[in-house]
């Protein structure tokens, strides 16, 4: 193949893309749709349920304060600290629950795998930025709140190429 044909072929390949829709996701306006409600784990079968590994969800009525999540995190990020909670649930004799520092968390989800009481899951919330370091530390009361996430956009593949819509 000659030099001229090669260059024309290369240009032609680029020109064809003028008609193709842009692939970029316009992030603050559009947000990706995820599978399920976040990563969960079923301790009876020992298998997780697929989902985004975002901010954690803590179920106060299940947590027994056994500290297994904190122990699992010790070798990874040391992000989980057990703190005193004022309201004493029946199953939680010590009245301690995990507090997670998202400045340290690497979102591996091993704490979710460690929880034998269905108390700690992960959610679809990934927008955790804060102006202060203290703002990244989520107390048990904050982890209890179910996140409101807007998910409208997903990957579409058709004759005009791939795009987010």
């Amino acid at each position, binding site marked *: 193949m000659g030099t001229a044909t090669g260059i024309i*072929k290369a240009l*032609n390949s680029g020109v064809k893309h003028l008609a193709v829709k842009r692939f970029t996701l316009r992030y603050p306006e559009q947000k990706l749709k995820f599978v399920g409600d976040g990563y969960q784990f079923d301790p009876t079968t020992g298998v997780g349920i*697929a989902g985004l590994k975002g901010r954690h969800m803590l179920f106060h009525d299940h947590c027994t304060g056994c500290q297994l999540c904190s122990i699992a995190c010790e070798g*990874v990020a040391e992000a989980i600290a057990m703190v005193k909670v004022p309201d004493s649930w029946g199953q939680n004799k010590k009245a301690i629950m995990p507090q997670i520092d998202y400045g340290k968390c690497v979102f591996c989800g*091993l704490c979710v795998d460690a929880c034998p009481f269905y108390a700690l899951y992960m959610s679809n919330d990934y927008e955790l930025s804060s102006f202060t370091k203290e703002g990244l530390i989520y107390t048990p009361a904050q982890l209890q709140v179910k996140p409101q996430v807007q998910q409208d956009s997903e990957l579409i593949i058709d004759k005009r190429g791939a795009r987010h819509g």
Partner: protein
Amino acid sequence: MAEVIPTKEMPPGLQVENVDDRIMTLNVGPQHPGSGHMRIIVKIDGDYIVDADPDPGYVHRGEEKMAEARNYITNIPHLERPVIHDSCNILYPYVLGVEDLVGIEVPERAKYVRVIAAELNRCIYIQYWLAIYGIFLGHSTMFMWPAGDRELFIDLMEKISGARVTHAYFVPGGVRNDVPANFEDVCLRQVNYFEKRIKEYGDIFYDNPILKARTEDTGVLSREDAIRLGTTGSVLRASGVDYDVRVKEPYDVYDELDVHTNVLKAGDSYARSKVPWLDMLESCNIIRQALEKMPKSGSIRTKLKPNPKGGLDEVYRRVESGRGAAGCYIVSKEKPEPYRLKLSVGSFRNLIALPYLLKGEKLGNMPAVYWSLNYWPVEADR
């Protein structure tokens, strides 16, 4: 090409040398010479490189030593940090090794899911590598296209594992969670579109006469030198050696799949940049085969004891990662933690070829040769 590098008694930068007026020493890096925190000490005579000395180690994080203080499960998130774009493949040998030590069987479906995840990860890594190779050579379209198309597979990995990079998906005994519902259809659709897209790279990049003029006959590594220097992966295959761990020592279900090795004979930068691209097309084939043969239902993970212990044993397993053979050597002394853990990675083994290839090249060709070695600085430093 020169035969041997002159031996040096002192580390680079410390030895006393005779200053020649014609020779200028140039430090390329360590502040990100294109990509990667590493330094190349280049000696140039006019525009020609007389001597080159790669100086890695700026991002050494002691992953191997860290692994000795953590148990077999909590090692998983940090052992994939060396290559976050190829995190499944760098974790693969470790997981296989721990399975041998602990002595557990992996369910059939989990093996197929692992192969699919590993091939998706290989494509994600090669796309990223290719994007940087494109921008190194001033081809900005070749930066935009792979960086965009990479999103297709990152989206798939996010659906499977829940994270865009650093998936922490493989565990000893299988994978952590099953693939979501109708994953097979979504995966097949995106793999087919991805294959169509990367075939277009041929027109704009690989058949482009400008790229050929830049990269053909630069940094030629002969077949004998490639074997003698111990290079691996795409560098070895571009020099005409038919070697792929997936074919020679099949792990998991690669022996049931039809894996074709791409071998080019030229051994120059062009061949080294083309082999990963052909590997991506091959990965698409492997994913399609694996999706077809995968058992539709079944167990995905063998349950492991909470704190698994290995016996008094040692094990070495290796896999084909995006950069070549990646191995993991684990010594166990009946403890929940490994006694020693050593990673053998493709990046570091390919870097040794750099001084041989750069000698006699023009300085302008340095990025084309350097990045064609499929080198990932963080992985080499570990």
